[in-house]
């Protein structure tokens, strides 16, 4: 008889091994084999296999029930010990859970922020086929330029060239004045083609849902502005009057859309037919590839090969645009609508674009706080292990495997992190309003399945990471050693010290960054800007070139006699946040062929007086000199320096071209814009006449024709009353134009708004970080003073003073902090100096502020541990050394 023919298949044999009771495994398997063979002999091996498989299935039911019963028993025991150990060590458990919940709360908020950032523009139907066409152009003088706009002609040619494009729309934005029965505001109006709604899926709330931009007389408004103009009325069918300069037309509201402000990068409030925009332009100008008036959005036919199309579009330039001068290139590119939210290079100010850097910063900060909390957990659990060595010893003696001990300790960590998750959610709900305020978002907790899964998974991972080292460390105790000794596991591991150092380094970096941020922000606030920016109101007059001067004059006469108004002046540019405010940059050619650039604005005689700018040489513009409007130039010190004019008064700069212009005065350098940028050369005139347009080589920014802005210095009195007075006076002077004003102080504040906010975010992060790190420090000192209680007792018996003992215990912890400081300095220095590069005017990074910050951290750490250590040092040695 060939026994091997009747062998149980190895897979089944393995199953048997698994499910048969350990104690009788071998005999039972023998019994099975015997029966198996006999079936083989009597019937065949096929029948035998069926029989044994059936047996296994039947047995495995009871096996599973059995093992479930024992496992639950074991897990119940684990849970019980976990809860006991949590409640026995109340302080450290609290520290652990609290630290973890702060870390989790911070990460949750960061997650909410990032999740929202990445949810943008996905509400359109089939977002993968919607693209923006943008231009990458190169010319030898200006270098590479990326633009959101495309030439108008391209949008016409596009449909012929690319059959795979299903829909196309132009989008041109222009600020216009909207008037509805005396409610007058300046608004951004978007001119779009009729296919706009075939591409974008903004929900249409009221009115014509089929084709909202139906004709040239209709306007579609967003629900955001519907409330502003119509309050409770039904806007559909009502009339809005749209004005720009001397053009004016009435439009009928055809529909109201939801502009999805929270999740749409493109921000539309008023939509009018693109034909209306075109009709105001010269048809000659529209032809050819010079009319950069709009951006372009397309939707592709489903199933289009995007990469192929991208490639084709990239090279159409050569076919269609023959007028391009040699040396210049122009390439068109596609950008998917889902990418535009984080594309900051092509930013139009109207769009809701955000820098992805902020997402990374948030994730980074959340990660740092969470890391510190995890490290805390590791340190404290390992520190406490002295208390649990006996438990580990007994469990091992009773036959616990190391793996089951690891499972137990990991389970404990996960239970703690689940508790921390709950309190973390509560903390983040409490902080959500503050967070929304800081980020300018409107986030809320929505308990979606995705959110729950991510949170639970995250918490499990956190629990796993935090619990891994303590679990491995504690489960490694040798039962014989730990049970024999009164206290085991007292040797401190290098790894724990390393963790403490990492933890404190991270906190110190954050603290230093916080201090440097603060110093720089204070510097920005307190820096002398070269003029008196307090109590100056700027009014955007929205006037036509034709009557701007008269309106300013009439307004001046209306208000200047009030004793609260100190002076009134006009300017062609606003004090703004652009690269050089809103000044126009002129490029002239010098005699040696070099180009010089100077920023230019038209002002009136009162301007320097109103702004508090000093004429340091020569004189101001004056009505007494009749020739001033034709020939007078005033420049700033920087312009003097750049152009190397030693005694400029009365001279004519040669670059300005022929004529009898002359410099009549030099003003002190003042900051015309934010301190991110250097002071640049400035040129002021009363009119455009002194600037010879024939010699101009380039003009960047709008050409300053006339006084667009009125600047008013106000005196004592309630600002609100003064503003009311100014508003009433404005209504008298020009009843059809909005009254738009702001204080220069506010404008200056807004330059640094994002820095302020990020400064505050860093403040919160570093306060949390140092707080959590100190919790860890506290726990560590607690553990180490408990562990050394006998040593302290013996030292005291032999006459050691309290001071010596305090020193003895604290020296190690303090050394760790000092070491972390040394590690933290280079990282903090790098971060701070990178950030300060953003500012043309910045503080110097001094060692002083670094050392001060770390001394602060050292001080906080010392205070944290002092309580525990003093308690240990002052305790009665008798209590400590008495045996049992």
């Amino acid at each position, binding site marked *: 008889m060939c*026994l091997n023919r009747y*062998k*149980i298949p190895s897979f089944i044999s393995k199953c048997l091994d698994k499910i048969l*009771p350990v104690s*009788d495994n*071998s*005999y*039972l*398997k*023998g*019994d*099975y*084999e*015997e*029966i198996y*063979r006999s079936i083989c002999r009597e019937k065949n091996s096929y029948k035998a296999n069926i029989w044994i498989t059936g*047996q296994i299935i*039947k*047995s495995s039911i*009871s096996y599973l029930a059995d093992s479930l019963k024992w496992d639950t028993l074991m897990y119940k025991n684990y849970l019980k010990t976990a809860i006991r150990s949590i409640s026995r060590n109340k302080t450290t458990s609290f520290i652990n859970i609290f630290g973890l919940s702060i870390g989790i709360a911070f990460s949750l908020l960061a997650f909410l922020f990032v999740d929202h950032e990445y949810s943008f523009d996905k509400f359109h139907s089939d977002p993968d086929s919607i693209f923006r066409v943008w231009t990458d152009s190169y010319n030898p003088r200006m270098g590479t330029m990326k633009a959101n706009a495309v030439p108008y002609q391209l949008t016409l040619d596009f449909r012929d060239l690319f059959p795979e494009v299903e829909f196309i729309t132009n989008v041109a934005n222009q600020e216009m004045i909207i008037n509805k029965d005396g409610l007058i505001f300046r608004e951004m109006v978007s001119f779009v083609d009729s296919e706009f709604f075939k591409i974008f899926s903004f929900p249409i709330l009221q009115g014509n849902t089929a084709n909202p931009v139906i004709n040239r007389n209709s306007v579609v408004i967003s629900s955001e502005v519907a409330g502003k103009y119509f309050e409770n009325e039904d806007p559909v069918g009502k009339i809005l009057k749209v004005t720009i300069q001397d053009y004016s037309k009435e439009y009928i509201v055809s529909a109201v859309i939801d502009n999805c402000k929270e999740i749409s990068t493109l921000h539309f409030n008023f939509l009018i037919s693109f034909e209306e925009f075109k009709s105001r332009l010269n048809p000659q100008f529209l032809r050819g590839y010079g009319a950069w008036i709009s951006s372009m959005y397309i939707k592709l036919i489903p199933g289009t090969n995007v990469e192929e199309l991208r490639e084709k579009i990239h090279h159409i330039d050569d076919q269609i645009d023959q007028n391009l001068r040699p040396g210049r290139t122009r390439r068109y590119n596609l950008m998917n609508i889902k990418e535009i939210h984080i594309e900051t290079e092509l930013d139009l100010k109207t769009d809701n674009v955000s820098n992805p850097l902020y997402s990374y910063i948030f994730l980074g900060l959340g990660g740092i706080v969470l890391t510190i909390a995890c490290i805390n957990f590791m340190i404290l659990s390992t520190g406490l292990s002295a208390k649990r060595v006996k438990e580990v010893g007994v469990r091992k003696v009773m036959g616990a495997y190391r793996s089951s001990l690891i499972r137990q300790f990991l389970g404990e960590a996960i239970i703690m992190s689940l508790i921390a998750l709950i309190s973390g959610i509560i903390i983040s709900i409490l902080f959500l309003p503050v967070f929304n305020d800081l980020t300018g978002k409107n986030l809320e907790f929505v308990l979606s399945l995705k959110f729950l899964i991510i949170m639970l998974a995250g918490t499990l991972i956190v629990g796993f990471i935090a619990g891994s080292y303590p679990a491995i460390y504690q489960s490694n105790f040798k039962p014989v050693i730990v049970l024999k000794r009164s206290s085991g596991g007292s040797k401190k591991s290098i790894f724990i010290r390393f963790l403490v150092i990492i933890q404190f380094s991270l906190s110190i970096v954050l603290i230093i960054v916080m201090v440097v941020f603060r110093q720089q922000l204070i510097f920005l606030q307190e820096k002398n800007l070269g003029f008196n920016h307090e109590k100056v109101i700027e009014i955007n007059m929205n006037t036509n070139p034709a009557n701007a001067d008269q309106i300013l004059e009439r307004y001046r006469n209306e208000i200047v006699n009030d004793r609260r108004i100190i002076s009134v002046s006009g300017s062609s540019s606003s004090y703004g946040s652009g690269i050089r405010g809103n000044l126009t940059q002129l490029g002239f050619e010098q005699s040696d062929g070099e180009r010089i650039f100077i920023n230019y604005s038209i002002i009136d005689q009162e301007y320097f007086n109103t702004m508090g700018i000093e004429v340091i040489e020569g004189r101001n513009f004056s009505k007494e000199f009749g020739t001033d409007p034709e020939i007078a130039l005033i420049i700033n010190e920087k312009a003097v320096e750049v152009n190397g004019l030693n005694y400029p008064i009365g001279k004519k700069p040669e670059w300005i071209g022929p004529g009898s212009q002359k410099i009549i005065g030099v003003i002190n350098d003042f900051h015309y814009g934010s301190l991110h940028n250097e002071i640049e050369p400035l040129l002021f005139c009363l009119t455009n006449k002194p600037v010879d347009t024939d010699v101009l080589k380039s003009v960047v920014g709008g050409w300053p024709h006339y006084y667009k802005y009125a600047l008013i210095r106000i005196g004592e009195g309630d600002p609100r009353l003064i503003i009311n007075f100014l508003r009433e006076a404005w209504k008298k002077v020009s009843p059809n134009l909005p009254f738009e004003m702001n204080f220069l102080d506010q404008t200056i504040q807004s330059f640094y708004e994002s820095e302020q906010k990020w400064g505050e975010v860093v403040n919160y992060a570093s306060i949390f970080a140092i707080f959590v790190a100190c919790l860890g420090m506290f726990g560590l000192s607690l553990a180490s003073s408990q562990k050394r209680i006998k040593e302290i007792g013996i030292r005291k018996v032999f006459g050691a003073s309290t001071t010596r003992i305090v020193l003895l215990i604290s020296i190690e912890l303090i050394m760790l902090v000092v070491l972390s400081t040394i590690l933290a300095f280079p990282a903090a220095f790098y971060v701070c100096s990178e950030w300060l590069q953003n500012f043309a005017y910045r503080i110097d990074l001094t060692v002083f502020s670094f050392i001060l910050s770390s001394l602060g951290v050292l001080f906080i750490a010392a205070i944290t541990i002092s309580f525990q250590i003093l308690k240990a040092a002052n305790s009665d040695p008798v209590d400590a050394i008495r045996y049992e």
Partner: protein
Amino acid sequence: MRAITKQEEQILLIIHSLKDRAYLVTIRDKLMEITGREFDVGTVYKPLKRLNKDGFLDTYLGEPTSVRGGKAIKYYKLSRNGIEVLKEAKKVQDKLWESVVLKELKF
């Protein structure tokens, strides 16, 4: 000493009748032969284990054989308690049947 179930009683009796040849396979075969029903290995093993634990059975090991893939046999035999409990069961059984005449046993 606890009372035993009918199945346990059957198994004990079979072990007794098998003398020194009583192990799981033979017990199961006999059981199937007498009752005419199919028994799973687990269904036989469980009462054996329980009876052993409760002290009605003793076990001893036999030699490994090639038929069993080189595994030893675990033989079962009645312990003193096992014999006692069987006697007890028999007594109860007899008392219960005493008044019954099989021929009259009908509905």
